[in-house]
Structures are given as C-alpha cells and as structure tokens.
C-alpha cells in the first residue's frame, strides 16, 4: 500500500517538504515497524477494494496520524517574542489570521457535502460511498487543525495590537462556499492548501524571531498534510471511474490561466462575490512589506497534484489548458 508518513515541523520543515514536491514521504509500507507508523492512505481506492479495509480501519489511521501531529496553540503563541517582530512580520500575522477564518466554513461544508454525496452513491457504488465517508469523517481533524491556525494568528494579532477583526468581518469570512462537484471541490482544496503552504514556507524563511518562525513552519507543515489528504481523496474518486479527470484539470486551469486565482489579490481583476470569501483574494499587500509570491513553486506543486490525482503528466500552464480542452471535448 502506498502511504504518506506523518511529519511535523519539528522533524522536517515545510520548506524541505515543499522542495521535494510535497509528496516526498510517499512510501511503500513494508518491513517491521512500518505498520506502527500512522500514515495517510494515499491509494485509498486500492485499500478499500483490494485490501478490504473498512471505514473503522481508515478512521483509526486518521485518528493515529492526527494524534501524532497535535501541537499546542498556547505553547507556540507563547514562544513568540512580540517585541522582536518587524513591521513585515506583523503584517504577515494579520493577513494569516484573516485568511484562516475561511477554513472553518470550508471544513463544515466538506463534511456536509461528502456525507450527502456518500448517501447518493450508497447501493450504486459502495466503494465510492466509503471513500466519501472517509473524506467527510477526516474533515473533523482538518477543522480542528485549522482552528489551531486561526486562533493562533488572531490571538497574536491581538497581542500585537494590530487592526482588530470586527465581528462583522468574522461573520463575513465564515460564509460558506457554494456546493460544487466533489472532485472539483477536492482539487480546489488541494490547490488552496498548496498556495497556503508555499506562502507559509516563504514567510518562515524571512521571519527572524524563532518563535514566530516555528509557528509559520508548523502551520505550513499542517497545510502540506492537508494537501496530501485532499489529493488522496481526489485520486480515489478518479480511480473509481465515477468522477472525470477533466474536473480536476478545470480547477487547475482556473488557478493557472492568465490572470488566474494563483495570483491571489495581486491579479488585475478580483471578482467581487457576495456568496463567500476566497482567502487568497483578500490578502492585503502593503508597500515595502514582504509578501510571498513563489508562483513557479505553486505551479509545479499543482502539476504534481494533477499527476497524483489523475495519473496525467503536465509541466506548464499551457499543457494544463490543452489537456483540459482535450478532456472537455466538443
């Protein structure tokens, strides 16, 4: 079985993992000891069909991995020397806190959507129903981990005396993204985690205070773990034959096309939406202060994600568009 072993920032930095494509810890479970290490089940379709793993088995693995990676927001926030932070650091904290507010509605929606979709497939394709239930169940860990990110950054913002987040903004950022095809949803979430992980990794490089650096590294490592989960669920749906690879490519194209979402709030036109808040649209850049880009890194990780989800290799935004156009047909 192909698996992704757990890592936390203390063991392996988000940057190091990103340098290796985000999936450097994909390994084949073999030999003594491997069975005891909690993993992300990367080949979920095979685990359910050939290895007959049940939802109880899969959920236990999720629980083990979650427990092995837990960390304390109070401890990491307490380790930041708030007197030492630069103006740039302060801006990074403030933006991160606002962005993380949008993850709770994302996780709540994933839970609801995955469960609804699971019930739709029950009796028609029970393997797909199990994949979706595994995904919806995992959303509880995702939600809990994102709570660490949101509360850590927003608490730090408060301690630093930065512009407060009003209750109105808080509520606005909790708006739920409208429902969509499940494969599109999972691909979008994979890409959102890629963009976030690269941003956090780059922020960690420029931050000087060891406490804040550790927090950004930890959050970046969490986002990579989430990306790996989303990719695993998306791949399983494609492997089932019930979901079309074109949907994954469509979302990638949405991000990678000229003026696409990967450029976040720096792109020429940001759609004004009343329905929900995309965190990458709302990052505020201030003159003279550091803000991460690393577009090439994000692009290469998106190509890698597409390969893992669909098995199809692409190496440029143009190839993503061409492949998507071919898959769409007339």
């Amino acid at each position, binding site marked *: 079985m192909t698996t992704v072993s757990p890592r936390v920032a203390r063991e392996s930095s988000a940057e190091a993992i990103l340098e290796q494509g985000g999936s450097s810890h994909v390994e084949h479970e073999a030999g003594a000891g491997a069975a005891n290490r909690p993993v992300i089940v990367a080949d979920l379709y095979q685990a359910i069909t050939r290895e007959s793993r049940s939802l109880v088995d899969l959920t236990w693995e999720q629980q083990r991995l979650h427990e092995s990676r837990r960390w304390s927001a109070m401890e990491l926030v307490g380790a930041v020397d708030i007197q030492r932070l630069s103006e740039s650091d302060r801006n990074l904290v403030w933006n991160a806190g606002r962005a993380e507010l949008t993850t709770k509605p994302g996780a709540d929606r994933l839970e609801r959507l995955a469960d609804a979709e699971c019930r739709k497939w029950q009796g028609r394709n029970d393997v797909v129903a199990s994949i979706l239930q595994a995904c919806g169940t995992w959303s509880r860990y995702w939600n809990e981990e994102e709570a660490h990110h949101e509360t850590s950054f927003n608490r730090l913002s408060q301690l630093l005396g930065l512009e407060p987040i009003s209750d109105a903004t808080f509520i606005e950022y909790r708006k739920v993204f409208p429902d*969509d095809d499940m494969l599109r949803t999972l691909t979008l979430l994979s890409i959102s985690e890629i963009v976030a992980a690269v941003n956090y990794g780059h922020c960690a490089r420029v931050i000087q205070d060891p406490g804040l650096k550790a927090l950004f590294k930890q959050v970046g490592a969490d986002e990579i773990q989430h990306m790996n989960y989303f990719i695993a669920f998306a791949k399983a749906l494609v492997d089932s034959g019930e979901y079309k690879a074109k949907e994954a490519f469509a979302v990638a194209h*949405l991000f990678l096309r000229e003026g696409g979402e990967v450029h976040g709030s720096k792109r020429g036109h940001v*759609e004004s939406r009343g329905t929900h808040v995309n965190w990458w649209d709302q990052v505020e850049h201030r003159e003279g202060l550091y803000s991460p880009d690393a577009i090439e890194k994000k692009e290469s990780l998106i190509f890698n994600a597409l390969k893992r989800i669909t098995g199809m290799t692409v190496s440029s935004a143009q190839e993503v568009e061409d492949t998507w156009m071919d898959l*769409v047909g007339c």
Partner: protein
Amino acid sequence: MPDIHEMETYIRRKFAEHVGLPESDLFGEDLTLAALITRSERMTNSVDLMEAFARTSNGLRKDFGLRVRLPALSLDTPISRVLEVFLQEAQSQQGRAA
C-alpha cells in the same frame, strides 16, 4: 473558410447549446456571465462557464480548423462582449491560417 456571419451563427448556436439556454434569452437580453450562471440549470459556477467556452472553442477547431482561446473574463461581462472576443480571436486565427 467560413465568413463572419456563418461563424457568428455557429458560435451563438453552440454556446447556447452548451449553456443550456435558448439563443433568444441569451443574446436577446444580453445577459452578463453572472446572470447566465444564475439562469441556467446546467451551470453551478464559473468553472461550468469555462467549460461551455472550451466546448464552443473545440467545436470551432473541429468544424473550421480554428484554434480559439478566450482570456479570463469577469462575471459582469455581457454575452455580446464574449461573442465579440470569440469572433475577434477566430478572425485573427483565420488571418494567420490564410
């Protein structure tokens, strides 16, 4: 090579077909892309819209040998403008092929 009117008729027909709305509604009211998504039962969001453009473009390639790519368009763009961009792109492709 098709003339401009033939191409316009083709694009209107194909696009209406892929969006799932009558041509008369789509172009008669000059709907914006946002309104089109709301009105069409087949559309959930801008990814569906992108796909409708892509399928129209693939049709142009298959039936006329033209490779047309549309830029990202904001959701307040009226459909008449989309048609205009499609035709401009198709004509420039024709020019290159001639």
